[in-house]
C-alpha cells in the first residue's frame, strides 16, 4: 500500500508513523541538493506557492522560501500584520482571494491555533502549517526528528526532553506527537506554571527539576523563553529562570552521558541556554537549520503529488 500525506499538513497529531517516516525518508535525497554548487532541481516547476505570514518570522519563512526555490516553484511572500480584531475576517477573505488566484500551495503562519486547518478546509490548494498559535509547527517537529535520527541513528527508544515553556509552545506539541509515534520516550521539564493541564495524559513524563531531566535524557530540546512570559506573570524573572531551569555547562557535566542539545531558535543566550552549551560540541542547533530546508522540500514535494520513490530522480533534474 502506498502511503500519502493527503491535501494539507496542519500538524503531526493525526499523521501515522508511516507518514512520518515517509517524510523523513523523502528528505534524505533532498539534503544533497543544498550541498551542490547549483542548488536547484525542477521538481515543482510551474507550481505557485504563497508564503502567508500573519506573524513575523525570519528563519521559518526563509527556510520555506529556500525549499520552494530549490524545487523551482514560483513563490510570493505575503506578510500581513493584521490587528487581532480583524484577524478572523482577514483570514477568511485572504483564503477566498488566494483561491481566486489559482495558486497551488499556501504556507501559513498565524497567531491563532487552528488557523491552518481553517484555511485548509476552505481552499482546494495544499496548505502547510508553518506555525499556528500554540497548536503545532509540524515542519519544525519533523526537522527535529530528522536531526535526532541523523545524530543518534534512530528515534525509537531515545529519551527526548523538551525544556521550558511547554504551555505556549507549538514546537513542543509537534515534537511530542511526532517523537512518540516513532517510538521515542518524551518528557517535558519546566516550571509548573508553563506546563499545560493534562500533559501527562498525552504519554509524556514530567520533570520538575532540570537536573532530573538531564540525568534521564539523551536529547534536550531547549525551547525559547519569551520575555512576555515574565510580564504576564508566569515566572518571576528571567534571571531566576536561568538559575533554576537554565541548561548550563555545569549541569550537563554532571550528566551520566553526553547529551545532544537542540534548540528551535531564535535563542536567548543566558536565559534558557548557556552560550557554551549552544556553541559546544554536542549542539546540533545548526544541523537543525540545515535539515529544515530538506524536510520542507520533502513536504512540498509530497503534497504536490511527488512520488517518494522518484524523489532521488526528481532531484537529478528530469528536464
Amino acid at each position, binding site marked *: 500500500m502506498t502511503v500519502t500525506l493527503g491535501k494539507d499538513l496542519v500538524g503531526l497529531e493525526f499523521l501515522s508513523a508511516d507518514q512520518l517516516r515517509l517524510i523523513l525518508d523523502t528528505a534524505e535525497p533532498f539534503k544533497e541538493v543544498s550541498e551542490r554548487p547549483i542548488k536547484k532541481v525542477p521538481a515543482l516547476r510551474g507550481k505557485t506557492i504563497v508564503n502567508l505570514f500573519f506573524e513575523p518570522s525570519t528563519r521559518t519563512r526563509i527556510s520555506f522560501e529556500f525549499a520552494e526555490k530549490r524545487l523551482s516553484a514560483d513563490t510570493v511572500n505575503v506578510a500581513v500584520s493584521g490587528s*487581532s480584531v480583524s*484577524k*478572523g475576517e482577514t*483570514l477568511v477573505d485572504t483564503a477566498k482571494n488566494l483561491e481566486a488566484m489559482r495558486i497551488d500551495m499556501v504556507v501559513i503562519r498565524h497567531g*491563532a*491555533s*487552528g488557523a491552518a486547518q481553517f484555511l485548509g478546509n476552505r481552499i482546494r490548494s495544499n496548505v502547510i502549517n508553518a506555525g*499556528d498559535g500554540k497548536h503545532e509547527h509540524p515542519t519544525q517537529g519533523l526537522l527535529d526528528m530528522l536531526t535526532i535520527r541523523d545524530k543518534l541513528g534512530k528515534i525509537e527508544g531515545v529519551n527526548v526532553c523538551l525544556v521550558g515553556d511547554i504551555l505556549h509552545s507549538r514546537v513542543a506539541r509537534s515534537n511530542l506527537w511526532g517523537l512518540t509515534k516513532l517510538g521515542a520516550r518524551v518528557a517535558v521539564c519546566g516550571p509548573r506554571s508553563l506546563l499545560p*493541564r493534562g500533559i501527562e495524559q*498525552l504519554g509524556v513524563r514530567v520533570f520538575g527539576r532540570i537536573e532530573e531531566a538531564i540525568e534521564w535524557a539523551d536529547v534536550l530540546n531547549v525551547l525559547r523563553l519569551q520575555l512576555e512570559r515574565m510580564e504576564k506573570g508566569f515566572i518571576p524573572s528571567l534571571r531566576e529562570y536561568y538559575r533554576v531551569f537554565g541548561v548550563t555547562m555545569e549541569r550537563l557535566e554532571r550528566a551520566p552521558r553526553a547529551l545532544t542539545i537542540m534548540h528551535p531558535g531564535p535563542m536567548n543566550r543566558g536565559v534558557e541556554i548557556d552560550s557554551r552549551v549552544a556553541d559546544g560540541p554536542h549542539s546540533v542547533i545548526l544541523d537543525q537549520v540545515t535539515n529544515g530546508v530538506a524536510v520542507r522540500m520533502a513536504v512540498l514535494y509530497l503534497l504536490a503529488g511527488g512520488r517518494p520513490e522518484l524523489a532521488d530522480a526528481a532531484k537529478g533534474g528530469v528536464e
Partner: protein
Amino acid sequence: MTRPLLLRGGRVIDPGRHLDRVADVLVTDGKIAGVEPGLTAPEGAEVRDVRGLVVAPGLVDVHVHLREPGNEDEETVATGARAAAAGGFTAVCAMPNTDPVTDNQAAVGFIVRQSVRAGLSRVYPIGAVSVGQKGEQLAEFGEMVGAGAVAVSDDGRPVVSGHLMRTALEYARTFDIPVADHCEEPTLAAGGAMHEGLVSTRLGLKGIPAAAEEIMVARDLLLAELTGGHVHLCHMSTRGSVELIRHAKARGVRVSAEVTPHHLCLTDAACEGYDTHAKMNPPLREAEDVAALRRGLKDGTIDCIASDHAPHAYDEKEAAFDDAPFGIVGLETAFGVAHTELVVGGVLTLPELLARMSAIPAGLFHLPGGSLGPGTVADLCVLDLNAPWVVRSTAFHSKSRNTPFVNRELVGRAVLTIVAGRVVHEHENVTAR
C-alpha cells in the same frame, strides 16, 4: 376579543399542580377556563383536536440575548419572540447587554414596547446591575422595575466587585427581584477560548479553568447569605458549582440556578477541529460535569433550564477559534434537545422537565404563566413527542444560525404555541392521532 379555544383530547401536564391526564383545555378571554375531560365547546369556539399530543404551560426562558438595540442584524425583539414562539416558549427574559446597555427605565420601556408591538411570545426585560454594565455604579433598579424589568444582571460579564454585588443583592430586596450573575473570575478566564483540560492542551487553545466559575459561585453564595438577597446563578457549567450550590441550599441560602441544554449534553470534545459553533461562555466542560449537572437538575440543586440564546452573524463564527465570538442560538432547539437527552435519555420524567422549563423559572422571576390553573393567563404550548425531526438551521425563525446541533435528530417539538389565548406559532405536519 379572541374566540374561545378548546384543545380537545391532549395529554395535559400541569407540573405545578402535579396534573397529568388526558383532558380538554378551554381558553376564554385569554385565560384558562377549565381543564377537564369532555368539556363542551362554547358558541363560536375554535376546536382543535390535539389527541396524541401534550398540552403544557408555555415554556419560560429566563436567559436570552435578543440583540436589540444595537445588533439588529443578528436578532431583534420581534425575531427573537418569533423564535421563542417556534420553540414553545411563551415568555423569555432578555438580557441587558445591548448597545446601548439596557440600564435605565427608558431602555427597559423600549424592550417592553417592542415586545408588545411584535405581539408574539412575551419578552420581559432584565435591567443592568450597573450603569453601562461597567461594574461601578448601581443602575436604577426601582425605575427599571417600574418600567417592566423582572430582574437585574450584568450578564455577558461578571459583577467583578464584591462590594457592588453585595449592594445589588441588598438593594434588589426592596423590589423582590433576583440578581442574575454570570459567574466568571476575570483574571483566571482572561483570553480563554474553551474549557481548560486535555482538549485545550491538544488544540493549543487557552483554557478557562472550572475554578474561574466556582470562585464567583462561592462568592455569590456567601454574599446572598450575608444579605438575604436572591442570587440567580446563570448557566452553571461545572461539577464544583453544583456542589457549592447544593451545600448553600442546605444552609437555606436564597439561591437559584440555571443550566443550558448544551451544557447538559455536550463536552469540550465538541471543540475538536476548532468548531466555532462549540465556542461558548461558560465553555463546554467534561463528561463528569455533564453528569453532575444532570444530577443537580434532577434533585433540584439546579432549578431550571435556560437557553442562553446568543445570536451571532454567520461571518462572525466563520473565523479562527480565538477570534470567533462566544455563544449559540438555542430557543428553537432547547425543548427538543432537553427532551431527547433528558426524558428519552431517562434522566427526568416529562413532567419534571416541563416544570424546569415553565413553572419553576416563571416562579423564580415572578412571571405570570407557567401554570394551567383556572383563571391563569392562557400561555401554553402543545408538544409533539412522537415524530423525530432533524435540526435545519435554515428553517430557524431566529435571524441567526449559530448552533452546534445542525443535522442532529431530536424527538419533541412545539407544534402550537398560544399566548394569552392567541395562537402565535403553529407547526405544519402535526402528527396528531
